[in-house]
């Protein structure tokens, strides 16, 4: 029973991190151009990451 008191907050916290990450990616414009992102992945540039 006491383990629940640790696990439940852990699970909820992880979920919140996921939602925060999604909202950040959305406001960062990462979902603005899905087709372009797919195409750029295949481009062959010599510049390093």
């Amino acid at each position, binding site marked *: *029973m006491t383990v*629940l008191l640790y696990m*439940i907050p852990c*699970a*909820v916290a992880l*979920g*919140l991190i*996921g*939602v925060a990450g*999604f*909202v950040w990616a*959305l*406001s960062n414009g990462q979902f*603005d*151009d*899905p*087709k*372009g992102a*797919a*195409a*750029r992945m*295949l*481009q062959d540039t010599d510049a390093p990451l």
Partner: protein
Amino acid sequence: MTALTANDLSNAEGGLAQDPSPYVTHSKTGQALDIQVRGATCGGCLSRIEGALGALPGVSTARLNLSTGRLRVEWAGSMPARRIVSTITGLGFGAVAFDPQQADVDHLKAERRLLVALAVAGFAAGNVMLLSVSVWAGQDMAPETRQLLHWVSALIAIPAAAFCGRPFFASALASIKARRMNMDVPISLAVMLAVGMSLYETAIGGEHAYFDASVTLLFFLLIGRFLDARLRRRAYAAANALAAMQTGVATRLAPLGAAETVRVSDVRPGDVLLLARGERLCVDGEIVSGASDVDLRLVTGETAPAAAAPGQVLRAGAVNMSAPLQIRATAAASDSLMADIARLLEAGEQKKSAYRRLADKAAAAYVPRVHAMAALGFAGWLIAGAGVPHAIFIAVTVLIITCPCAMALAAPLVQVVAAGRLYAGGVYLASGDALERIAEVDHVVFDKTGTLTMGDPMLSGSDDPAQLQLAAQLARASRHPWSRAIARAAGSGPVADDICEHPGEGVSGRIGGEEARLGSAAFVGGEASDAARLWFRIGSRPPVAFRFEDHMRPDAAAAIDELRRMGLTVEIISGDALDNVRDAAARLGIEAWTAQATPASKAERLRTLEAAGRKVLMVGDGVNDAAAIAGAHASLAPGAAVDVSRLAADCVYANGDLAAVPRIVGVARKARARMRENFGFAVVYNLLAVPIALAGWATPLVAALAMSGSSAVVTLNALRLAKGKEAA
């Protein structure tokens, strides 16, 4: 250099080659320009465009958004903006500078808010469901454990419901203030009562808490809302892109004679504009000086060019062909023919937004009945002796289980799937309710030039084919549609020496030392006649004639037969000459046809048909079709149509491929069938669920199963639309 097509010319070739500098923004770091690119579809196009622009001197950023077609270029230095546009067009893409519109930022923000709400609702629904399943599965769970789980659910569900329910609460409040009840009223009631009641149950240590139902309800509803908002924003953004293309540049002559490039929206009445060869006129005006031929195909539908001389009035949309003209603007762009059409469009828009979608009709039937059922349950149980808490419990269960999920998802899902299927076939849908309207039509009206026909005259025969190559040496220098037809038939090759174009008459030059003429009968010395023909004479040889006709599209007859088989009647209304329209109608087996129609008479004919109770589908491409397109029950435009017609149409099909027309009607009818099935299913489901809730047999588990189950059924039914053979 490949042959020019009507597409090149009609899309303001003058604008493409002109200076985009009025649209360049300047800042401390350099200059920036936004361009709408047409034709970039794949990764290869992206690399080529960005690579070519990155190689230009001084360019620091060149980023193309492949999903919207918008390109942003930033550069420092003295490179002229014109070079950017010519680089892109040199690669084979269309490029028009534009002003980034602020308008669609609002739509984007609304859509983003819905997406964030959807993400939070999904997170909450998942976690609360996790806890609820534990409660339902734990038959021998200690009450304290159950209490704990309920309290944790409350902690997650209450803030989530407050945040995610905002769109529904706001809409319900607005609707109540307007003394109407839309679908959001029972939804908001259900969510608030469910959360409140569950909190009460948790506080007294009760068994049933509906936290998962309230958040899952919001999750499903937000899916429907988000899809609807996205479809609408895409349609709005694409319409904006078309409008941005329409704003181009014009060359204004200052009183001292200097020419400057200005935005079309800055042209004032009284300004003198220079209209170059191949350029499209952007405002209504009177010719001040110059003599030339103009192509009025986009304005009236006439295939034969008209002569232009000083004193004549030209309407916006006319394309100049032979020689530069100076034109005094008689109206600003906002008051020209285009603007008249735009006003007609607005009126048409209002008519369309008054159209009651299936979803609205369903909501109107649903809302009062659900409220009545809930009130009945509350009153009934109260009278039967149960306490107020239990009576409220029953009422809330009724509200939740009647599940507006299926209703809310029924239409948007089908529309999104149908739009996706059409898009894969090269058809772009302008709005969600377009599908419903297209499915209702029983009569199709076609424009002729450019819609049923290729739009460009083609060489159909000549007295002496051997002289084609010689005639082509003169033809390549002229923009007259017939000359272009000769040049296309002959292929690429040399141009004669000493070319001189005589507007309204023809072209003269020297080929191999001999004088040659190509033009009208009077100019060349051939026999005069009414038929479409061009005469050619070289040296002292006898003149030979070249004949032209506007060819029917190869799939026109098949498409019309298919439409008839689907039970639709077909008609042609065209602005072209009597003979041309009669021949076309005869070839396609169409009995009802009208020739020499003006834009107003086209719209009038449509009004007559609608008054007689017919639902009309209008298919057209020119400026003269735009008013009819706006007034019809539903409308289609080919991809090569003029901007205004594309803006007004419900649906745009690529390549002028007429086989798309019956296909679109077919998909629309199937979509309407799916939507009706979905709503029918929602009704049946409610008829079963309400008695169960009223009898008190519904628990949170039952409600959750019912909600998810009905949403899944509706989704699967909508996906049926995605399967089905698509003609290649």
